[in-house]
């Protein structure tokens, strides 16, 4: 029973984490940018969801439609903010050192932190209606909220979609060409900047979606962004940067490690992520799924 609880709790947490990490790993994979501001887009997604769900309610739409509102919120964030950031900001710095780009996204994180505060103010938003939409699932003595299981489904769907898109479609292969070298890809006729914009947009969509999906479970307020950055970084590192499968397994490892800690040794929760990451890296210095490197010599 305990093992099963740990498993369920771990998977639920992992699915949330996976959606965030998926976007992060995608953006890194394609644009070679380790996006610290990913957490900010997550927060903006949560805020947008809060606004959209509230807006749906004022329009008199049924609360059953609130998932649609959340999805729309994520789409809106991606459609508006992603091109703005990618074309307006990141593009200026392409080709620069990777570390420098991390710094650019750190600056972006600082800026977005205050911008969300200016736009939405410091008071928290609550949109817990969707959380109850899917009822409860009784499980022995435990009661889970159906929403949590819905989260698992969404995560699996997102993962499959991105994996399929990158590995089984032509677009994916074209993206691989861009990842390898934008100069070569554009010589072959690939509109590299469009691929960049789309990839970034999709990554941001995933961040915003994760934020939107989390909005009903928390109060949406300043400070939301910081918490997710490091843990999603850890997931992506464990899995191997840029790897979809890796992000999935990394999320599971982190989720299960955390659930195991909480249930059996709560005092160790604070360390669980870092220990998991360190153990994986000691045995697999480049993460579980390392990207294939071209021959150097």
């Amino acid at each position, binding site marked *: 029973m305990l093992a099963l609880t740990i498993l369920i709790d771990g998977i639920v947490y992992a699915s949330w984490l996976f959606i965030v990490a998926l976007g992060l790993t995608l953006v890194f994979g394609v644009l070679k940018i380790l996006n610290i501001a990913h957490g900010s887009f997550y927060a903006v997604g949560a805020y947008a969801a809060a606004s959209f769900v509230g807006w749906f309610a004022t329009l008199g739409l049924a609360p059953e439609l609130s998932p649609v509102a959340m999805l729309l919120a994520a789409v809106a964030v991606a459609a508006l903010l992603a091109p703005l950031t990618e074309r307006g900001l990141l593009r200026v710095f392409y080709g620069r050192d990777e570390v420098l780009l991390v710094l650019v996204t750190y600056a972006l994180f600082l800026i977005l932190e205050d911008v969300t505060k200016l736009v939405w103010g410091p008071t928290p938003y609550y949109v817990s209606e969707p959380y109850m939409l899917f009822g409860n699932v009784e499980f022995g003595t435990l009661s889970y909220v159906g929403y949590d299981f819905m989260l698992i489904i969404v995560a699996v769907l997102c993962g499959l979609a991105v994996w399929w898109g990158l590995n089984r479609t032509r677009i994916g292969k074209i993206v691989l060409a861009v990842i390898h070298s934008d100069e070569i890809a554009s010589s072959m006729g690939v*509109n590299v900047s469009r691929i960049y914009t789309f990839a970034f947009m999709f990554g941001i969509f995933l961040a915003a979606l994760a934020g939107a999906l989390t909005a009903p479970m928390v109060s949406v307020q300043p400070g939301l962004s910081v918490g997710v950055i490091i843990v999603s970084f850890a997931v992506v590192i464990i899995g191997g940067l840029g790897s979809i499968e890796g992000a999935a397994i990394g999320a599971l490892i982190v989720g299960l490690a955390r659930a195991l800690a909480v249930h059996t040794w709560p005092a160790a929760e604070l360390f669980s992520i870092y220990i998991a990451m360190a153990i994986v890296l000691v045995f697999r210095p480049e993460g579980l799924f390392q990207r294939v490197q071209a021959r150097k010599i």
Partner: protein
Amino acid sequence: MLNIESVNVTIQSVQALRGFSLAVERGSMVGLVGRNGAGKTTLLRTIMGHLTPIAGRVSWDGVDLATVPRHARAAMGVGYMPEDRGLVPELTVEENILVPVWVSKTLDERERLARVYEVLPELREMRERRALLLSGGQQKLVALARALAVGTRLLLLDEPFEGVAPALSQRLSEVVFGLRGKDLTVVIAQSELNHAASMLDREVVIERGANAKEKAA
């Protein structure tokens, strides 16, 4: 035709091309020779739009290339084989060849593939191998095939015979020169043209980024 009118290109404060001019007739094959660092690669990359001339003009088929985005060159029938091969390591040989065909609106995948395998049959055997596993020479072969797949009208080949064993190098030049007369314009940059020289229409010498004496082939 390909028309390069006294272009100047600087890379990080190094002036790599100094008023270089070149006109290549449609359907002709031109060799671009010069010592190391003469500017051959720079010229080809300028034509491909990866470098922007600070002066001068590059046009293909009457279109000023400064006005088209760099990825649009492939759609104009330009195929480019970069000096360092530039294959996508994760993709298979066949996928590498097909990427430019996929993004093109006009090319037919089956037709292009058949055509490439016809001129380079040895690729058939390795079609499923990942590009990163190939040796240097094998990669050259694939890079040429990829340029051929999309370069229906203009081929820019940067050192296609470099690091290639003599047997294969002969094959490659046969392939390239076998395309003659098909309305295909070819520019080959190479520091020496030994066995290929005889088959070219013209050899253009580039010296420290500028035109040098020209010898008719």
